[in-house]
């Protein structure tokens, strides 16, 4: 098969993960944030695949399947919520959601 060392593979996963993380942090559009979360989940899945490959186990893959299911469920609820937010606020700007906060007394 391939002889790319594991840590390089993990490096790839990490880079993808962190790109996703940056995306969550810097985008004000909720849809983009959700997308970035998907990137992160995908990167996490990649790690399981790497692990599964190296220990030659199916467990890693099983886990990724569950991750997929979870991503689907989360996206479903997430998108519904985004729609509701847009419905209520007429925007997808996450910084507009700041009604809940500590009021300085």
């Amino acid at each position, binding site marked *: 098969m391939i002889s790319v060392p594991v840590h390089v593979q993990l490096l790839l996963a990490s880079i993808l993960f962190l790109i996703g993380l940056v995306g969550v942090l810097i985008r004000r559009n*909720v849809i983009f944030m959700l997308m970035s979360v998907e990137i992160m989940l995908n990167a996490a899945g990649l790690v399981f695949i790497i692990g599964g490959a*190296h220990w030659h186990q199916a467990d890693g893959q099983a886990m990724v399947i569950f991750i997929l299911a979870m991503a689907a469920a989360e996206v479903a609820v997430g998108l519904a*919520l985004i729609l509701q937010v847009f419905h209520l606020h007429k925007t997808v700007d996450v910084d507009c959601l700041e009604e809940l906060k500590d009021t300085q007394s």
Partner: protein
Amino acid sequence: MWHQQVIPALFPQIILSVAAVVCMLLIAVKRNHAVVHLFTLLSLLLALGSLGRIPGVMGVDGLFVVDGLGVFMTGLILITAFFIGIFSYPYFSQSVLEREEYYILLLLATLGASLMVISNHFISFFLSLEILSVSLYGMIAYTKTSTVATEAGVKYLMLAAVSSAILLFGIGLMYVATGQLGLSGIGRQAVYTPTSGWFTAGLGLVLAGLGFKLALVPFHLWTPDVYSGAPAPTSAFVATISKGSVFVFLWRLFDSIGRDERMVIIFVVIAVASMLIGNWLALKQQNLKRLLAYSSIAHLGYLIVAFVAAGDRGLDAAIFYLVAYFISMLGAFGLISYLTESGKEKLLLQDYTGLFWQRPALAILLSLIMLSLAGIPLTAGFIGKFYVLLAGVYSAQWLLVMVLILSSVIGLFYYLRVVVQLFSRPDHAVYFPRSPYAISTGMAFLVLFILLIWLGIAPGNLITQIQQVVHLARG
């Protein structure tokens, strides 16, 4: 593999799953709030009753381990869910929305939590966590016409998703390092690779993910927003069940991989920060739900003290503490639910001014809860705190013990502020509604009241019970 005992061992969880499905069918047939409510309560009771049928300690497929700890916590979760179910009825009956789905989500969330406390494997843990989280998204944003509930939902969803991703990445790294997903397997492997970079990095990420669920500093920022935005019964759920179950898994995880010295340092830092910052944040808080949120941050910090103390004593202490904490939080959020008037929750402390002069029983209950949270004798909270301190002193965690003391005094300040507010004479006439659904709620309050006092005065029985449970977990 599958054998006959598996089914009785998982009776409560199976009952909950079936109940969720049946509940959905009930709604499909005809929407009726009362019926669904009663059905939910009954099924929770049934699940609780089925606990007695559990044959004994056993593992299931390597995914679960049904031991004393798991059974005890399942029972606790079911009872708590039962109370939340009771409190949901008056709360949602005033709502204009469809109310019935809430109970499905409640059942599912309870299912997730009750699965988590017996999880012995990362896959089962991850899935139960997600059942819990996904149900909670729905529960938090349930009153969807409210901007705050939606906002709370979005915040919780985003943060939970990110933390899930972090958690998953961490699990992945641990998997890469050990090739195991079961806790016992990881534990076996961890002995050989205690300082492995991948393993510790993974563990650190897992810690961050769990820390988020437990709302430990610095992953705590969502708590007040979610508590105050979500419907009061949901807040009660988030504050109690969701944290308690994750805490149990945390305990199992570190029991199997051992408490590495560096990890202990991290926990000490987190505990100190949680205790202090949680209490500091609550100090001048005027919003009761936010105040409870901050208080829960601090309380989880206290729990971590018991966690760091480890051992049977630590587990005893942690479980007792959880029980006391659950009772207090349930009562507090129950009262908020109960006093909610046509969908409008009484959030500000000043809304409670003079409660004593109008509804003395409620005021006394709430002050007792506050005193319990503050850990004052006569209440369950005192024995809990005493127990945690005992565990801390026993393991010579002097720093944690001292911080616990100091921060609990900071905490006392705001608890007392609430109490004083309840008893102060109002400037103008105040009116607190008498909910038409007072009987069941009132009974629930009475039970909580008695429990608070009883556990505060004569905790002997429960302590013995817990000690047996802990032994069962080991044996």
